[in-house]
């Protein structure tokens, strides 16, 4: 097995266990979390908090290395400007997230339960992603 495939597989597996463990794969919980003016369930703030605390602490240590284990260099997003495309994109994303309680990772992690709602969401996700070009 190629190393980069294996490393990706390990990363995706850890990510999946974290999502299931933290309750992110339950759209009901996500909607309760977003319902700050109703029956707010703050549990998921701890998920994002735990994840961001970890990356804030460890990303700088990793980036102090000259290069990753596999590959010539770290490949980081090059864009730094805040523009209308970013703002509208985030707003459209937030609208979809609020309607279903699903963002891409949890929906993929739930795929093999073959629930109709999850499959419909993923079909929409793929079609939506393919209708817009990278820039």
């Amino acid at each position, binding site marked *: 097995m190629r190393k980069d495939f294996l490393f990706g597989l390990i990363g995706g597996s850890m990510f999946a266990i974290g999502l*299931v463990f933290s309750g992110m794969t339950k759209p009901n919980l996500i909607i309760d979390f977003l*319902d700050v003016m109703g029956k707010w369930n703050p549990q998921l703030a701890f998920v994002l908090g735990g994840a961001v605390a970890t990356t804030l602490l*460890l990303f700088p240590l990793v980036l102090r290395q000259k290069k990753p284990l596999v590959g010539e260099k770290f490949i980081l997003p090059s864009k730094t400007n805040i523009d209308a495309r970013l703002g509208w994109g985030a707003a459209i994303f937030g609208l979809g997230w609020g309607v279903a309680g699903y963002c891409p990772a949890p929906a993929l992690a739930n795929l093999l339960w073959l629930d109709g709602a999850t499959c419909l969401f993923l079909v929409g996700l793929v079609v939506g992603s393919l209708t817009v070009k990278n820039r």
Partner: protein
Amino acid sequence: MMDNWIVASGGGVLIGLAAVWLLWSLGRMAGVSGILNGILDAGKHAEKWRIGFVLGLVGVGFLFSYLTHNQPILPSDKPWWQWLLAGLLVGIGSRLANGCTSGHGVCGLGRRAKRSLFAVLIFMSVAILTVWIGRHV
């Protein structure tokens, strides 16, 4: 309730560690929409690490939730077209914004990117507003 918070934080740390692992081993960002788009755009020629990541996410996502009796719980009161519409919006929005909850939230905030802070504030606000309108108006 306190237990839930500890479990949630632990799960969050694990998600963060997955992102740290991907950066350390492959030099890549664990942004799930970006990883998926790379596969959708390249098809058969997609980079192998992306395929590995999605296979791990999908396969272990099922296995772990099955073994720990954590099956997905979805709102049952939504008509079918809302799931399709939500997927479309999330797909279009994350492509326009170059990232979703993981790319901008977990990774972008972790490297203190201003674009990501901006994106997270907007999508959180809009999502909260959307739920408020759906539930309370």
